[in-house]
Protein backbone atom coordinates (compact mmCIF):
# COMPACT_ATOMS: atom_id res chain seq x y z
CA UNK A 1 0.00 0.00 0.00
CA UNK A 2 2.85 2.37 0.83
CA UNK A 3 4.08 2.32 -2.78
CA UNK A 4 0.75 2.82 -4.53
CA UNK A 5 0.41 6.50 -5.49
CA UNK A 6 -3.33 6.35 -6.22
CA UNK A 7 -4.23 4.95 -2.83
CA UNK A 8 -1.83 7.32 -1.07
CA UNK A 9 -3.37 10.39 -2.71
CA UNK A 10 -6.93 9.20 -2.17
CA UNK A 11 -6.16 8.46 1.48
CA UNK A 12 -4.56 11.88 1.95
CA UNK A 13 -7.72 13.53 0.65
CA UNK A 14 -10.06 11.22 2.53
CA UNK A 15 -8.49 11.09 6.02
CA UNK A 16 -9.08 14.77 6.92
CA UNK A 17 -12.56 14.54 5.39
CA UNK A 18 -13.44 11.57 7.59
CA UNK A 19 -12.10 13.39 10.66
CA UNK A 20 -14.18 16.44 9.78
CA UNK A 21 -17.21 14.21 9.30
CA UNK A 22 -16.54 12.70 12.74
CA UNK A 23 -16.54 16.18 14.30
CA UNK A 24 -19.76 17.00 12.43
CA UNK A 25 -21.38 13.84 13.79
CA UNK A 26 -20.10 14.68 17.28
CA UNK A 27 -21.41 18.23 17.47
CA UNK A 28 -24.47 17.89 15.25
CA UNK A 29 -25.69 14.96 17.34
CA UNK A 30 -28.22 17.18 19.12
CA UNK A 31 -30.05 17.97 15.88
CA UNK A 32 -29.61 14.93 13.67
CA UNK A 33 -28.54 11.33 13.99
CA UNK A 34 -25.18 11.05 15.69
CA UNK A 35 -23.41 11.56 18.97
CA UNK A 36 -20.29 10.64 20.88
CA UNK A 37 -20.32 6.89 20.28
CA UNK A 38 -20.65 7.18 16.52
CA UNK A 39 -18.22 10.09 16.21
CA UNK A 40 -15.57 8.25 18.20
CA UNK A 41 -15.77 5.19 15.99
CA UNK A 42 -15.64 7.29 12.80
CA UNK A 43 -12.61 9.22 14.05
CA UNK A 44 -10.87 5.95 14.86
CA UNK A 45 -11.75 4.66 11.39
CA UNK A 46 -9.82 7.58 9.89
CA UNK A 47 -6.72 6.57 11.88
CA UNK A 48 -7.22 2.93 10.88
CA UNK A 49 -7.17 4.07 7.26
CA UNK A 50 -3.96 5.99 7.95
CA UNK A 51 -2.33 2.98 9.56
CA UNK A 52 -3.40 0.66 6.76
CA UNK A 53 -2.20 2.91 3.95
CA UNK A 54 0.93 4.50 5.42
CA UNK A 55 2.02 1.77 7.82
CA UNK A 56 1.47 1.16 11.50
CA UNK A 57 4.71 2.74 12.70
CA UNK A 58 3.84 5.99 10.92
CA UNK A 59 0.40 5.97 12.53
CA UNK A 60 1.99 5.42 15.92
CA UNK A 61 4.15 8.49 15.34
CA UNK A 62 1.14 10.56 14.30
CA UNK A 63 -0.99 9.36 17.21
CA UNK A 64 1.37 8.32 20.02
CA UNK A 65 0.18 5.56 22.32
CA UNK A 66 1.07 7.63 25.41
CA UNK A 67 -1.35 10.41 24.56
CA UNK A 68 -3.88 7.87 23.33
CA UNK A 69 -3.95 6.27 26.78
CA UNK A 70 -4.42 9.72 28.27
CA UNK A 71 -7.37 10.20 25.91
CA UNK A 72 -8.92 6.91 27.07
CA UNK A 73 -8.99 8.08 30.68
CA UNK A 74 -9.59 11.78 29.96
CA UNK A 75 -12.94 10.99 28.34
CA UNK A 76 -14.19 9.04 31.35
CA UNK A 77 -12.84 11.76 33.63
CA UNK A 78 -14.62 14.46 31.64
CA UNK A 79 -17.87 12.52 31.93
CA UNK A 80 -17.46 11.95 35.67
CA UNK A 81 -16.17 15.50 36.15
CA UNK A 82 -19.32 16.96 34.64
CA UNK A 83 -21.26 15.07 37.29
CA UNK A 84 -18.97 16.35 40.03
CA UNK A 85 -19.36 19.89 38.71
CA UNK A 86 -23.13 19.65 38.97
CA UNK A 87 -22.71 18.33 42.53
CA UNK A 88 -20.46 21.30 43.37
CA UNK A 89 -23.14 23.58 41.95
CA UNK A 90 -25.51 22.18 44.54
CA UNK A 91 -27.58 19.64 42.58
CA UNK A 92 -27.52 15.86 42.17
CA UNK A 93 -24.81 14.00 40.29
CA UNK A 94 -25.18 14.59 36.51
CA UNK A 95 -28.08 17.02 37.01
CA UNK A 96 -27.22 19.58 34.33
CA UNK A 97 -29.83 22.15 35.35
CA UNK A 98 -27.45 23.46 38.01
CA UNK A 99 -24.67 24.25 35.51
CA UNK A 100 -26.22 27.49 34.22
CA UNK A 101 -29.11 29.77 35.05
CA UNK A 102 -31.00 29.16 31.80
CA UNK A 103 -32.27 25.54 31.94
CA UNK A 104 -32.05 24.83 28.20
CA UNK A 105 -28.55 26.30 27.93
CA UNK A 106 -27.52 24.27 30.98
CA UNK A 107 -28.82 21.06 29.44
CA UNK A 108 -27.06 21.88 26.17
CA UNK A 109 -23.77 22.46 27.96
CA UNK A 110 -24.08 19.28 30.00
CA UNK A 111 -24.96 17.13 26.98
CA UNK A 112 -22.13 18.68 24.97
CA UNK A 113 -19.53 17.94 27.66
CA UNK A 114 -20.78 14.43 28.31
CA UNK A 115 -20.97 13.54 24.62
CA UNK A 116 -17.49 14.91 24.08
CA UNK A 117 -16.21 12.71 26.91
CA UNK A 118 -17.86 9.67 25.35
CA UNK A 119 -16.45 10.53 21.93
CA UNK A 120 -12.93 10.98 23.29
CA UNK A 121 -13.00 7.66 25.14
CA UNK A 122 -14.51 5.70 22.26
CA UNK A 123 -12.09 7.13 19.69
CA UNK A 124 -9.03 6.43 21.85
CA UNK A 125 -10.25 2.96 22.79
CA UNK A 126 -10.90 1.95 19.19
CA UNK A 127 -7.48 3.23 18.11
CA UNK A 128 -5.85 1.40 21.03
CA UNK A 129 -7.65 -1.82 20.07
CA UNK A 130 -6.56 -1.57 16.44
CA UNK A 131 -2.95 -0.77 17.35
CA UNK A 132 -2.85 -3.67 19.81
CA UNK A 133 -4.24 -6.16 17.27
CA UNK A 134 -2.30 -5.03 14.23
CA UNK A 135 0.94 -4.52 16.18
CA UNK A 136 0.87 -7.92 17.86
CA UNK A 137 3.29 -9.57 15.42
CA UNK A 138 5.84 -6.77 15.73
CA UNK A 139 5.37 -6.76 19.49
CA UNK A 140 6.15 -10.47 19.83
CA UNK A 141 9.24 -10.23 17.60
CA UNK A 142 10.49 -7.19 19.50
CA UNK A 143 10.08 -8.83 22.91
CA UNK A 144 11.57 -12.06 21.55
CA UNK A 145 14.61 -10.20 20.31
CA UNK A 146 15.07 -8.51 23.71
CA UNK A 147 14.57 -11.80 25.52
CA UNK A 148 17.05 -13.59 23.27
CA UNK A 149 19.52 -10.77 23.86
CA UNK A 150 19.07 -11.02 27.63
CA UNK A 151 19.43 -14.81 27.56
CA UNK A 152 22.62 -14.49 25.56
CA UNK A 153 23.99 -11.91 28.02
CA UNK A 154 23.03 -14.08 30.98
CA UNK A 155 24.59 -17.12 29.33
CA UNK A 156 27.81 -15.21 28.71
CA UNK A 157 27.89 -14.01 32.34
CA UNK A 158 27.19 -17.53 33.58
CA UNK A 159 29.95 -18.95 31.35
CA UNK A 160 32.37 -16.37 32.74
CA UNK A 161 31.52 -17.52 36.27
CA UNK A 162 32.01 -21.13 35.26
CA UNK A 163 28.47 -21.98 36.31
CA UNK A 164 26.06 -24.00 34.08
CA UNK A 165 23.64 -21.91 32.12
CA UNK A 166 20.66 -24.23 32.42
CA UNK A 167 18.92 -25.63 35.46
CA UNK A 168 18.54 -29.01 33.79
CA UNK A 169 22.29 -29.47 33.52
CA UNK A 170 22.70 -29.01 37.27
CA UNK A 171 20.96 -32.36 37.96
Amino acid at each position, binding site marked *: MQDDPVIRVVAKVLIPTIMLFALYVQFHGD*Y*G*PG*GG*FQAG*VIFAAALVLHAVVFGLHRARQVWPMRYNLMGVSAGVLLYGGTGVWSMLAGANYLDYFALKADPKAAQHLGILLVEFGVGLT*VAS*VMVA*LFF*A*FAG*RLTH*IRLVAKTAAHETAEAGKAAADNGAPARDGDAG
Partner: protein
Amino acid sequence: MSDIAAQWNYYVVIVLMMLGFYAVIARGNMVKKMVGLNIFQTSVFMLYISVGKIDGGTAPILTGDAASVYSNPLPHVLILTAIVVGVATTAVGYALIIRIHEAYGTIEDDEVAALVDADQEARERADAGPAS
Protein backbone atom coordinates in the same frame (compact mmCIF):
# COMPACT_ATOMS: atom_id res chain seq x y z
CA MET B 1 -51.36 -16.96 8.80
CA SER B 2 -52.22 -13.31 9.32
CA ASP B 3 -50.79 -13.73 12.80
CA ILE B 4 -47.44 -14.78 11.37
CA ALA B 5 -47.48 -11.83 8.94
CA ALA B 6 -48.25 -9.42 11.78
CA GLN B 7 -45.50 -10.82 14.01
CA TRP B 8 -43.07 -11.60 11.17
CA ASN B 9 -40.17 -9.70 12.74
CA TYR B 10 -40.35 -11.56 16.02
CA TYR B 11 -40.40 -14.99 14.35
CA VAL B 12 -37.45 -14.20 12.10
CA VAL B 13 -35.52 -12.72 15.01
CA ILE B 14 -35.93 -16.02 16.85
CA VAL B 15 -34.68 -17.97 13.82
CA LEU B 16 -31.61 -15.70 13.75
CA MET B 17 -31.12 -16.27 17.48
CA MET B 18 -31.29 -20.05 17.00
CA LEU B 19 -28.62 -19.89 14.27
CA GLY B 20 -26.29 -17.82 16.43
CA PHE B 21 -26.92 -19.95 19.50
CA TYR B 22 -26.19 -23.15 17.57
CA ALA B 23 -22.92 -21.70 16.25
CA VAL B 24 -21.85 -20.72 19.76
CA ILE B 25 -22.52 -24.08 21.40
CA ALA B 26 -21.78 -26.52 18.57
CA ARG B 27 -18.92 -25.15 16.49
CA GLY B 28 -15.39 -25.83 17.72
CA ASN B 29 -13.65 -23.01 15.88
CA MET B 30 -13.37 -20.01 18.17
CA VAL B 31 -13.57 -17.35 15.44
CA LYS B 32 -16.78 -18.98 14.28
CA LYS B 33 -18.07 -18.95 17.84
CA MET B 34 -17.41 -15.19 17.97
CA VAL B 35 -19.29 -14.61 14.70
CA GLY B 36 -22.14 -16.77 16.03
CA LEU B 37 -22.17 -14.63 19.17
CA ASN B 38 -22.38 -11.51 16.99
CA ILE B 39 -25.35 -12.96 15.10
CA PHE B 40 -27.02 -13.79 18.42
CA GLN B 41 -26.31 -10.24 19.60
CA THR B 42 -27.74 -8.69 16.43
CA SER B 43 -30.91 -10.76 16.80
CA VAL B 44 -31.40 -9.30 20.29
CA PHE B 45 -30.80 -5.78 18.92
CA MET B 46 -33.34 -6.45 16.19
CA LEU B 47 -35.91 -7.61 18.74
CA TYR B 48 -35.55 -4.43 20.78
CA ILE B 49 -35.73 -2.15 17.75
CA SER B 50 -38.78 -4.05 16.41
CA VAL B 51 -40.51 -3.54 19.76
CA GLY B 52 -39.84 0.20 19.52
CA LYS B 53 -41.35 0.60 16.03
CA ILE B 54 -44.77 2.26 15.75
CA ASP B 55 -46.83 1.94 12.55
CA GLY B 56 -46.81 5.23 10.67
CA GLY B 57 -44.20 6.58 13.07
CA THR B 58 -41.01 8.29 12.08
CA ALA B 59 -37.50 8.47 13.54
CA PRO B 60 -37.45 10.13 17.01
CA ILE B 61 -35.85 13.35 15.80
CA LEU B 62 -38.35 16.12 16.34
CA THR B 63 -39.69 17.67 13.14
CA GLY B 64 -41.49 20.57 14.79
CA ASP B 65 -44.77 19.25 13.41
CA ALA B 66 -47.13 18.53 16.31
CA ALA B 67 -49.02 15.87 14.32
CA SER B 68 -46.06 13.54 13.69
CA VAL B 69 -45.84 10.22 15.52
CA TYR B 70 -42.40 9.14 16.72
CA SER B 71 -41.12 5.62 17.30
CA ASN B 72 -40.10 4.80 20.85
CA PRO B 73 -36.60 6.24 21.50
CA LEU B 74 -35.86 4.18 24.61
CA PRO B 75 -34.89 0.89 22.85
CA HIS B 76 -32.72 2.91 20.47
CA VAL B 77 -30.72 4.34 23.38
CA LEU B 78 -30.27 0.94 25.02
CA ILE B 79 -29.16 -0.74 21.79
CA LEU B 80 -26.89 2.11 20.68
CA THR B 81 -24.71 1.70 23.75
CA ALA B 82 -25.03 -2.10 23.57
CA ILE B 83 -23.53 -2.14 20.06
CA VAL B 84 -20.41 -0.24 21.14
CA VAL B 85 -20.02 -2.35 24.28
CA GLY B 86 -20.55 -5.41 22.06
CA VAL B 87 -17.61 -4.53 19.83
CA ALA B 88 -15.43 -3.89 22.87
CA THR B 89 -16.21 -7.32 24.30
CA THR B 90 -15.75 -8.90 20.87
CA ALA B 91 -12.28 -7.35 20.79
CA VAL B 92 -11.47 -8.94 24.16
CA GLY B 93 -12.66 -12.27 22.74
CA TYR B 94 -10.44 -11.96 19.67
CA ALA B 95 -7.49 -10.99 21.86
CA LEU B 96 -7.99 -14.14 23.93
CA ILE B 97 -8.21 -16.20 20.72
CA ILE B 98 -4.86 -14.78 19.59
CA ARG B 99 -3.24 -15.67 22.91
CA ILE B 100 -4.78 -19.15 22.89
CA HIS B 101 -3.34 -19.70 19.44
CA GLU B 102 0.09 -18.53 20.60
CA ALA B 103 -0.05 -20.89 23.57
CA TYR B 104 -1.50 -24.01 21.94
CA GLY B 105 -1.06 -23.55 18.20
CA THR B 106 -4.73 -24.19 17.45
CA ILE B 107 -8.08 -22.42 17.83
CA GLU B 108 -10.32 -25.51 17.75
CA ASP B 109 -11.62 -25.97 21.25
CA ASP B 110 -11.49 -29.81 21.28
CA GLU B 111 -7.82 -29.74 20.25
CA VAL B 112 -7.06 -27.14 22.91
CA ALA B 113 -8.80 -29.31 25.51
CA ALA B 114 -6.74 -32.36 24.43
CA LEU B 115 -3.51 -30.36 24.70
CA VAL B 116 -4.46 -29.08 28.14
CA ASP B 117 -5.14 -32.64 29.29
CA ALA B 118 -1.84 -33.88 27.86
CA ASP B 119 0.03 -31.09 29.59
CA GLN B 120 -1.74 -31.85 32.87
CA GLU B 121 -0.65 -35.49 32.58
CA ALA B 122 2.92 -34.45 31.79
CA ARG B 123 2.95 -32.27 34.90
CA GLU B 124 1.55 -35.05 37.07
CA ARG B 125 4.11 -37.51 35.73
CA ALA B 126 6.86 -35.03 36.47
CA ASP B 127 5.56 -34.35 39.99
CA ALA B 128 5.15 -38.06 40.70
CA GLY B 129 8.69 -38.68 39.47
CA PRO B 130 10.68 -38.07 42.74
CA ALA B 131 8.42 -40.41 44.78
CA SER B 132 8.95 -43.46 42.53
